[in-house]
């Protein structure tokens, strides 16, 4: 029961891990992704991606700029141009 989350920038693969939930700042509003989310694609605005490792844990925030998110069968992939951890 985990969501596979990948965060990729042109320079490197920043994250590739299994987490509980990720909240992504989409252009048209924030959305949370849990395991089994329907296929979905959205551009994201500059802001913080919140990564919840386990249910109820304090989120880890990662600042991203310029990118988009894709939810597919194999989890969530966030492609961002810049990342500030």
């Amino acid at each position, binding site marked *: 029961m985990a969501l596979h989350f990948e965060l*990729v*920038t*042109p*320079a*490197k*693969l920043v994250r590739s891990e299994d987490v509980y939930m990720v909240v992504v700042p*989409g*252009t*048209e509003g924030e959305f949370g992704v849990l395991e089994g989310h*329907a*296929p*979905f*694609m*959205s*551009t994201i605005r500059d802001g913080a991606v919140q990564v919840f490792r386990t249910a109820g844990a304090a989120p880890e925030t990662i600042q991203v700029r*310029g990118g*988009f998110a*894709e939810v597919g*069968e194999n989890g969530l*992939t966030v*492609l961002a*141009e*810049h990342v500030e951890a």
Partner: protein
Amino acid sequence: MASLKELKGRINSVKSTQKITKAKQMVAAAKLRKAQAAAEAARPYATRLSAVMASLAGKVSGDSAPKLLAGNGSDKRHLLVVVNTDKGLCGGLNSNIVKEARNQARALEAQGKDVSFYLVGKKGRAPLSRDFPGKTGEGFDTGNVRTPGFTEAEAIAAELVALFDAGMFDVAHLIAPVFKSALAQDPVTQQLIPVPAPATSAAADAVVEYEPDEEAILAELLPRYVKTQVFGALLEREASEQGASMTAMDNATRNAGDLINKLTIQYNRSRQAAITTELIEIIAGAEAL
């Protein structure tokens, strides 16, 4: 025959040249490892991006497709984006790139197209502006940063897209070296703008929801795709430069070694000859007494 002193001087000068080439070779070897790692690290982003592009491009077609994908309807004016290195001492790399660019330009001109250049890096400017005077106006200088990164790629791509939007050219090609190994870096030409429609994955997979709609996402994705291509070219260039430099400097070091051996033999022979002559003189003098 050169005098002993002259020979000694030459041997010393070749020795210092060898020291320099050896140092440059080791520096290139160290940098090559880094450049290769960087090129490797950039690959996941590129593959994911083109996968997404492929799935999107299949859905958006016809009139609604953005200009960057569909082109502006004509293919008269071609822009060749040539990626050269900034520094020399890397063997035939730059002249190979220039040769490829020249062949492409000639082929396009033979088809009656207008060709102009956009030069990245310093080393291609002189030969290309000699062959195609007045066509090498625009360019981007990567010489003032140590390792060109995504910021530079971003600037180049933004300028290219702006030029395209302003209608300065119809089709852009990217000519850049592709790093195969330290021995082989072949220049490769690929179309950059309009973005070549990727081979669509045949399986129309599950219904994907888009936010905002497909066109908006695609419109934002295309410039990013161009950026990634340019970034990839810069990384390949970096790896190719170091690889070519390493090989060239290895050859130079070896040649210098050969030359030193040859000169040393010559030096020893003439020293021996001088000693023999001296001895003969002494013996002849002693006999005369």
